[in-house]
């Protein structure tokens, strides 16, 4: 329950600021390539650097947290590369990262609403169909 409430509050703040700043975690790289505009790219870098500094600090304050190491076998790495490529490529075509699409949908952009419909249906599709197929064909 703590996690649910915390994530709702985090989301509220992120959504509010995201709408005000038009933040997009994909648009930064796109804008830099297209028009050498660094506004959104700076946001992406700021997010990464802040988290990079905050992780060890938080670990220091919280004390020894149990580590839950992610699997790092070859198949996982290849899947991560393929998935990452797809996220970047399709998000660029879709004109924004998932966060940006949520924000646009919230301010009345109907194409982002259909994006979200596909997004959430995609989650079901993934676990009902895509993941089992992947499990079957991968070693």
């Amino acid at each position, binding site marked *: 329950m703590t996690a649910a409430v915390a994530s709702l509050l985090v989301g509220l703040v*992120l959504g*509010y600021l995201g709408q005000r700043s038009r933040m997009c975690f994909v648009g930064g790289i796109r804008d830099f390539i297209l028009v050498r505009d660094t506004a959104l790219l700076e946001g992406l870098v700021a997010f990464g650097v802040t988290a990079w500094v905050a992780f060890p600090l938080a670990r220091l304050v919280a004390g020894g947290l149990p580590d839950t190491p992610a699997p790092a076998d070859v198949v996982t790495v290849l899947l991560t590369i393929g998935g990452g490529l797809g996220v970047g490529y399709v*998000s660029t075509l879709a004109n924004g990262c998932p966060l940006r699409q949520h924000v646009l949908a919230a*301010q009345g952009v*109907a194409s982002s609403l259909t994006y979200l419909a596909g997004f959430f249906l995609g989650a079901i599709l993934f676990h009902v169909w*895509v993941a089992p197929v992947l499990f079957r064909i991968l070693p």
Partner: protein
Amino acid sequence: MTSYVASGFSRTGADEERTRPTRVTAVHTGIVAGVLAVAAGTFFDVRPPDAYGICMACHGRDLVNWTINAAFATGLTVAPASLAFPLLTTVGVFLGAVAAAGRHGEFRWVTPDHPAKTFLYGLLVMNFALVAGGCAIRLTLRTAAGELVGSVGFIAMAAGIVLGTWWLRWRATR
């Protein structure tokens, strides 16, 4: 609040710039999001897995699958952090953005150009993100957490964005 009411249909409203200067910059948002993501993961039980503080794809998946599991007693995958009750980041972002857009008179309906296409984009991005283990935000977060596989995913995502942008530019200048 009168401007909150949608006024007709505009086809260009998606990224139409306002004349007022932006007071909240992307850097502000990035810093706040970074602090919140780490805090949520470390102090408020938004874990495991590690570096799970903010993710639009995984948290959205958790919410959808948890709801379906609760309603139909199915066994769709949910992250351990969402077992008891689903993470509501996506709901929060939506409501937060509604509040911000409403407060600043930026809510207006824009009819979709290609609803089938954007639907497909959403579907694909969710599937790719679940394969990679994170949306754009969480791949960045995993990189910041020093997770090697996560940074590989981030580099792949950046490469995908570069390819996508080249494709957009090529199509525009053809």
